[in-house]
């Protein structure tokens, strides 16, 4: 027999040993779009970190004299935690790329969404603390320092201070929430949609 005919015959015979994927397996593969969402979460958080890094070491001239030691400590301390989150995002991405089972994908999506939520909550709490502290500290500084404020302030001053603090904090947190919703909200919603689809085929 011709060598190529022999090869053809053998090739045909090997069909029996081909892998066999189920409907669900293929469906999960299409839904693997999830992995690209998780990849974007990682990329965005990484970019956020890169942009945040120079800001950390930069203090505007106007605030130089205020010298908020507390805020410095807080931001420096929070940085390793941010790096840890970026690392987690990376792990999530790696993990979701490696799974193909429906159950595995569901778990990965839940984990990815949870990490993003924790990350956002963490960032918002840091911003909350900084904003409250900075508002109070700036106000007191502008009124001539802590001792002067204590001696001269009337009860209305306290009210103004509290109102200003709440206003500034609301503004900053509001902006931050808008920012995060824009950045991550879209990806989270898509992940959630995939999750619901997967849930349907699992039962």
């Amino acid at each position, binding site marked *: 027999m011709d060598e190529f005919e022999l090869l053809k015959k053998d090739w045909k015979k*090997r069909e029996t040993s081909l892998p066999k994927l189920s409907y669900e397996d293929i469906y999960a593969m299409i839904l693997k779009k999830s992995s690209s969402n998780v990849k974007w979460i990682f990329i965005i958080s990484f970019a956020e970190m890169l942009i945040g890094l120079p800001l950390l070491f930069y203090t505007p001239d106007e605030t130089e004299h205020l010298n908020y030691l507390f805020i410095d400590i807080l931001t420096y301390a929070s940085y390793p935690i941010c790096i840890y989150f970026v690392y987690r995002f990376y792990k999530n991405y790696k993990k979701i790329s490696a799974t193909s089972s429906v159950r595995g994908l569901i778990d990965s999506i839940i984990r990815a969404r949870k990490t993003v939520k924790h990350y956002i909550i963490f960032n918002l709490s840091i911003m909350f603390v900084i904003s409250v502290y900075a508002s109070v500290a700036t106000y007191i500084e502008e009124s001539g320092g802590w001792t002067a404020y204590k001696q001269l302030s009337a009860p209305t001053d306290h009210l103004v201070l509290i109102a200003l603090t709440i206003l500034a904090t609301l503004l900053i947190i509001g902006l931050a929430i808008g920012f995060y919703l824009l950045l991550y909200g879209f990806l989270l919603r898509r992940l959630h949609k995939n999750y619901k689809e997967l849930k349907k085929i699992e039962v």
Partner: protein
Amino acid sequence: MDKDLEQRFISQLEKHQNIVHKVCRIYTSGQDEHSDLFQEITIQLWKAFPNFRGDAKFSTWMYRVALNTAITLYRKSKRSVRGDSHEYVLNNLKYHEYNDEEEQQLKLMYDAIKQLSDVEKALIFLFLEDKSYREISETMGITEVNARVKMNRIKSKLRTILNP
């Protein structure tokens, strides 16, 4: 509507998945690469499915998209040359039905195919699939004459690799 499209696509692919597996077998060595390429092809098929008008047979269309993916997309991203190629292809089936000499020859031939270019692999793959020259020309987007000429060249190239 979208749901319906999805269901139709998956059922069709499930039915014809052998085609994709065989393309993976020609182009990859190792289980991981096989799954990788399978997934890549599935995604490309799914992306192209809305444009599949049904004037060609689904399987013919699959051959085309799968081979195009293997040739163009997969090549660029990742390809590691590993030494386990023939073990991977050959391990799946024991050669009870062949005598030693034939077994040895087949082994060498699969190894020789691995040395071909991506386009040549596509052509020899279609030959192994027992496709007519008309079908090959349709799938590859070349003329029938060209397909015939190319196939003969590939065969003699394989012969040269086998008997240097």
